[in-house]
């Protein structure tokens, strides 16, 4: 069974034309992989659909704008996958 990271990496590769081998857990989606906010909407849509969750992008964006969180906290891929796992667990609880 694929890990959350493997699934997310495939989604990013499919939606952003980034080679799969370049997508590693320590990369930041924006600053390392060069994904922009519009492309990330496609990724968020695909993640929502794939995992049956709703990534709280609005809340995350508000927290970033208010300096309550750093970009790394949500968009380094290992941390993004942790958040996805939390959302899946909450959905299944």
């Amino acid at each position, binding site marked *: 069974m694929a890990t959350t990271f493997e699934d997310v990496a495939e989604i990013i590769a499919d939606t952003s034309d980034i080679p799969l081998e370049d997508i590693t857990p320590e990369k930041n989606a924006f600053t390392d992989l060069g994904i922009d906010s*519009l492309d990330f*909407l*496609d990724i*968020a*849509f695909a993640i*929502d*659909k794939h995992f049956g969750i*709703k*990534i*709280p*992008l*609005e*809340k995350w*964006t508000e927290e970033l704008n208010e300096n309550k969180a750093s970009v790394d906290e949500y968009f380094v891929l290992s941390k993004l996958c942790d958040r996805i796992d939390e959302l899946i667990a909450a959905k299944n609880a």
Partner: protein
Amino acid sequence: MLLEYFQMIDAVELLDTDEGKVVARAEVPLQSPVFEGHFPGSPLVPGVLLIETMAQASGFMLLARMKFEKMPFLANVISAKLRTFVEPGEILIIEAALEHDGSGFAKTKASITSNGKKICDSQLMFKIMPFPNDTLKNNMLDRFDQINSAQINSSSAGPKN
């Protein structure tokens, strides 16, 4: 339709905010400055304005669904097929349905028919953002009231403000 003012929707005929569906109507004007250039001697509604029409139907549905608290901005024309020409005087029926209600974004599917014939269809992505100012919000509310009061079907629902 007032093409030059980007007023693409004339009336909301059916709106279901819970299901995320809208059916709207638009009458292509017989004359418009747009037709002077597109095209001289052969007036046709530009394809980009048909996409805009589908986006506006989707947008009004999203606005009503969000009770006009935020504004959907067209962010991505994921796909669009323009199947046939639209000439002055045609009556267009625009349908849009919510495909995905994300956080800060939404995806819709929309289509236009005329006389039962499919004109075009599209998949659209909207970024959901705060209104940049009250002027835009009030304009959207006023415009929605205009097209919603022109409805034919009483199942339409207005904003609860």
